[in-house]
């Protein structure tokens, strides 16, 4: 598959969305919690509590919606500041109760609209980055589709970041990149190649720890094995001293890309 074919696969509306992952892995144990306690409840972000075997976890996902009606309701998975603030509220709550956090990311990016700017989209993302880096509870992020720039990173400052084999993660969309650099959005396939945004590229760059085989919505067994993998990682990190954990998280991001610097 070419890089751009992976982009197309990552955007495929038929692949499982965050709510599919939650339903398949946590079933009835999931209870959704709403609102940022400041302005509104952002439906682009679905969040709540669930049982991961016998461990309670906080689950936060960016949800694109599974049909047209849902997609409109979910703002096509483009979160607003209140969405990121809801996520942060629940992460701080998870820290309080020492619950691990699982983030499922699937977004073309944070919503670039007037209201979002007025309510501090940049500030909301910045705060998440800062607070997640020091969150004294394990955080695991899985990119299950599109990982669009700051809007994805705002839920991806984690101890480990995993990617579905057909997910992509990039600083800018290939269309955006092509239209800025080459004034031609039709050159998106070239941009996708140049941006190194596939799971394999990102694994090679040390940005993600694991590439996961993409489950189909009805594929119970694959969700079960993913759940087991998540549980092992979160349990292992839960046993670490919180200060050691945050130190490791800082070092994880501190290390990325520095091998190429010229001093």
């Amino acid at each position, binding site marked *: 598959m070419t890089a751009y074919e992976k982009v197309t696969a990552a955007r495929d509306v038929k692949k499982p969305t965050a709510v599919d992952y939650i339903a398949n892995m946590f079933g009835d144990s999931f209870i959704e919690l709403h609102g940022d306690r400041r302005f509104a409840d952002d439906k682009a972000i679905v969040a709540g509590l669930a049982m991961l075997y016998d461990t309670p976890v906080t689950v936060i996902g960016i949800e694109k919606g599974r049909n047209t009606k849902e997609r409109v309701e979910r703002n096509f998975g483009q979160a607003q500041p209140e969405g990121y603030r809801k996520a942060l509220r629940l992460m701080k709550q998870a820290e309080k109760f020492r619950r691990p956090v699982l983030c499922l990311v699937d977004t073309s990016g944070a919503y670039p609209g007037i209201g979002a700017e007025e309510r501090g989209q*940049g*500030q909301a993302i*910045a*705060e998440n980055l800062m607070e997640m880096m020091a969150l004294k509870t394990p955080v695991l992020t899985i990119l299950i589709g599109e990982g669009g720039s700051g809007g994805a990173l705002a839920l991806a400052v984690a101890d480990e970041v995993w990617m579905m084999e057909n997910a992509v993660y990039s*600083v*800018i969309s290939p269309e955006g990149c092509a239209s*800025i650099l080459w004034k031609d959005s039709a050159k998106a396939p070239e941009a996708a190649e140049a941006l190194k945004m596939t799971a394999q590229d990102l694994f090679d760059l040390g940005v993600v720890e694991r590439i996961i085989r993409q489950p189909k919505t009805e594929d119970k067994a694959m969700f079960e094995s993913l759940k087991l993998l998540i549980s092992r990682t979160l349990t292992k990190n839960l046993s670490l001293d919180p200060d050691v954990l945050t130190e490791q998280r800082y070092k994880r991001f501190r290390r990325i890309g520095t091998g190429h610097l010229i001093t």
Partner: protein
Amino acid sequence: MNIFSFVKPKNELENSDDTKQNVPFVPEEMWTRCPKCNTMLLTTDMEENLNVCTGCNHHFRMSAAQRVELLADEGSFCEHDASLAGGNILDFPGYDQKLEKARKNAKESVICGECLMGGVRTVLCVMDADFMMGSMGTATGEKITRAFELATERRLPVVAVTVSGGARMQEGILSLMQMAKTSGAVKRHSDAGLLYITVLTDPTTGGVTASFAMEGDIILAEPDTLVAFAGPRVIEQTMRQKLPKDFQTSEFVLQKGFIDAVVNRQSLKPTLIKLLKLHGCREEKK
């Protein structure tokens, strides 16, 4: 001598081809037109006024070196990691040439170091619009991170002056990672109880807004500065929304509650010194 010869003194040049070449020569760079009020300003006057229009208070952009000169006590700035630079890590088409061109002005899009500000030892990071529009690459993020780590270790305050088009797309995901890295360094500095002041200058956008620019304990901005996550062009193009007048200016962002104050360039340094001293930062003994 004919009396009529005095009616009109004969100008030797009048009918000559040399006329054009003999008009007084005004070099273009002597004058600068203010883009806001259209006044023609004598460049030297404008520079003396800290690159601010004497007519309408429009703040022109400043180079990073001018910023350092504006804020640091004379001769006190000591640059750190001056030679640190990034390369074309992803082998991105055309990036090598862009880097080469940009490097004629500076090594990277930020200058970091320590200085005295009103006698107070301060770590100062100043972004450079002349280097690829202040975009944040791996080396930019590394320099800022190191500046914060040093400030944390030596218990110094940090002042960061931002100007940026956002993350540098030619470094792909690695530039995005700088947002997390710098935010982590800011957080550690903050948790150590130390002061961080940001000064937003025109334009501060994208990944810089969504990381260390908005993470200051105190956030100041110059007048009429674009402060945005998604810039006006992005919003108009992708959302097809018409933007209100003065949307995303520092005055607008102030009104929405996301910055502490809009400060004129003339009062910037005194304001910073005042804030440093209000946080118990002491003047060094001479």
